[in-house]
């Protein structure tokens, strides 16, 4: 605060209003209000309404009434639900590992100097830019038992037998994970690339003079410097993959024999197709506590290291 203002204040010429605006904390909260209102309107209301639905026997066209934990009880004995739960965990865990590994590899390669660098960088973003519905439909053709280009290549060049990718329970979920990994790599890759580019080159020079090998530079400089981005990307991607709907819905929609159901597609089938909105809401809310724990764990971990 300027000396002049302090002088006025001392003589009691400035109102209390001005002083409140000058203090950081109250002003900060005041400025937060619009954002909180928006968040409340667009996030909290649907979320709370969803929770409410999950404890009612609402159906489409019927508001229903409170039934306590009955929907959750029902799910416990639903074998498709249990299968979906397991699939969701597998789907997320496996694809996350591959997206992380391959994304990091992609970033490291893109960070090298090579011809047509910009073009290649842009091109590699494509899987992420194309609307999922479109690209997933394309993949459906590639996995088609008769027209599959994958099978054609396997048959003609590698002399492997044809695979009915989406038609058999043993390969359908794998196909789903392949497409998800393909679609997810660019997000990891580009985020990591951005992270890599913020690491000052002098650090690598210092490490080289200090005697670090390429691998040691990666372990000792690149990875730790990338950690904050890594954590955030991992967090976002985990949440999005847990809730992924478009891809499983378009590629298999639970087929064959509900073997590729994930929680989102199963919740949709029960809640919208079947009309049991209450149960559908309960299914989709199951992951909420699990996700919250993961998020809290990651955020606390991120803070404590600093």
């Amino acid at each position, binding site marked *: 605060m300027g000396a002049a203002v302090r002088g006025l204040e001392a003589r009691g010429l400035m109102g209390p209003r001005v002083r409140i605006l000058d203090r950081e904390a109250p002003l900060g909260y005041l400025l937060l209000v619009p954002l909180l209102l928006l968040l409340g309107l667009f996030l909290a209301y649907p979320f709370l309404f969803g929770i409410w639905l999950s404890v009612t026997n609402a159906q489409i066209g019927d508001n229903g009434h409170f039934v306590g934990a009955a929907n959750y009880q029902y799910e416990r004995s639903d074998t498709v639900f249990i299968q979906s739960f397991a699939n969701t965990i597998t789907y997320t865990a496996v694809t996350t590992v591959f997206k992380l590994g391959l994304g990091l590899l992609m970033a490291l390669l893109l960070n090298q100097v090579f011809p047509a660098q910009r073009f290649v960088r842009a091109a590699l973003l494509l899987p992420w830019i194309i609307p999922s519905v479109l690209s997933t439909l394309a993949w459906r053709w590639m996995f088609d038992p008769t027209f599959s280009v994958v099978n054609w290549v396997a048959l003609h060049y590698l002399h492997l037998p044809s695979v009915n990718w989406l038609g058999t329970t043993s390969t359908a979920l794998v196909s789903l994970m392949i497409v998800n990994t393909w679609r997810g790599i660019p997000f990891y890759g580009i985020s990591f690339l951005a992270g890599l580019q913020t690491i000052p080159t*002098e650090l690598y*020079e210092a490490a*080289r*003079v200090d*005697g670090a090998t390429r691998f040691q530079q990666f372990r*000792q*400089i690149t990875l730790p*410097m990338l950690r904050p981005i890594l954590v955030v990307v991992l967090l976002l991607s985990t949440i999005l993959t847990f809730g992924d709907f478009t891809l499983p819905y378009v590629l298999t929609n639970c087929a064959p024999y509900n073997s590729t159901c994930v929680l989102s597609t199963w919740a949709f089938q029960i809640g919208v197709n079947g009309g049991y909105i209450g149960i559908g809401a309960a299914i989709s809310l199951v992951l909420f506590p699990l996700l919250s724990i993961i998020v809290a764990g990651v955020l606390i971990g991120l803070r404590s290291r600093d």
Partner: protein
Amino acid sequence: MASVSYENVTKRYSGDTLAVDNLSLEVKDTEFMVLVGPSGCGKSTALRMLAGLEDITEGQIKIGDKVVNDMPPRDRDIAMVFQSYALYPHMSVYDNMAFGLKMRGTPRADIERRVNTAADVLELGPLLKRKPRQLSGGQRQRVALGRAIVREPQVFLLDEPLSNLDAKLRVQTRIELQKQHRALHATFIYVTHDQVEAMTMGDRIAVMRDGVLQQVAPPREIYGNPANMYVAGFIGSPTMNFIPVTVQGKTAKASGFELELPHAPGVEKGTLGIRPEALTEAPVAGHAGLDLKVEVVEILGSDQFLYGTVGGDSITARVDPHLKVQPGDRVRLGVDTRRLHLFDSATEKAVL
């Protein structure tokens, strides 16, 4: 222990930038060599080639008697202090200093002993657990130095290590560095654009300009016998007075005065170089002198600088601070002819 030699070393960056042009320089074992020159003259490039961070386009560099052109930095037994310090931000001070030793598989107990010794010397003991961002600029600088010292290398490379420090700290650290140099018995190659650092620290100074080495000599000689006009103008503050003269035999004639040179330089046109302190307020009758028309007077306590003109030439003189002078005065100054320099107009080389 090791000497360093550059043998006809040239560095060309892509896009035809000639950063270092045919550099030949011998740095003796345990010598403190300063590379000095203005921004962009190629000093960092020269240092980075020695460190192995840049390829050498032509020529060769030797450390001891080994050619290191194709040797990776880690095998060169050198340590480097960067201008930005390049401390590893995610590591504690201790880990920063231990890093080089860890990478070389030094036993843990050894590492601890060496880091602690260096930390004691540099007064970093209480800071060992901190991260670099929790340190002041001066402390960071000491960590960067410590990281180099614990490695006990044969050659220390320092690229403008003091330029991020404030004036007072710079003087302290300068002295500290000289102490370390004596204690470590290692070869130091120090890059700076600051002539004061160069003069105060170097056993010898190498002055560079546009990638070309101008002169290598001990500070006294660089100051007293600059090889050319560039070196003469670069070293010394305020800079040497340069006055165009015509020469006939031993007589040099400027626009506002003339004087007798100690001997005939053998050129007809030249530039006379007079350091400000070679002008004295007590002219001796019969010796050379000139009349300065004073325009600006600067009193710095221990010194007094007079800025003015003689004929058509601007001249700076350093005189006794007790001499009472006003702008507008005319002052008769004596010239110490033993400390005159004369440079050939065409080649700018010293001819006297």
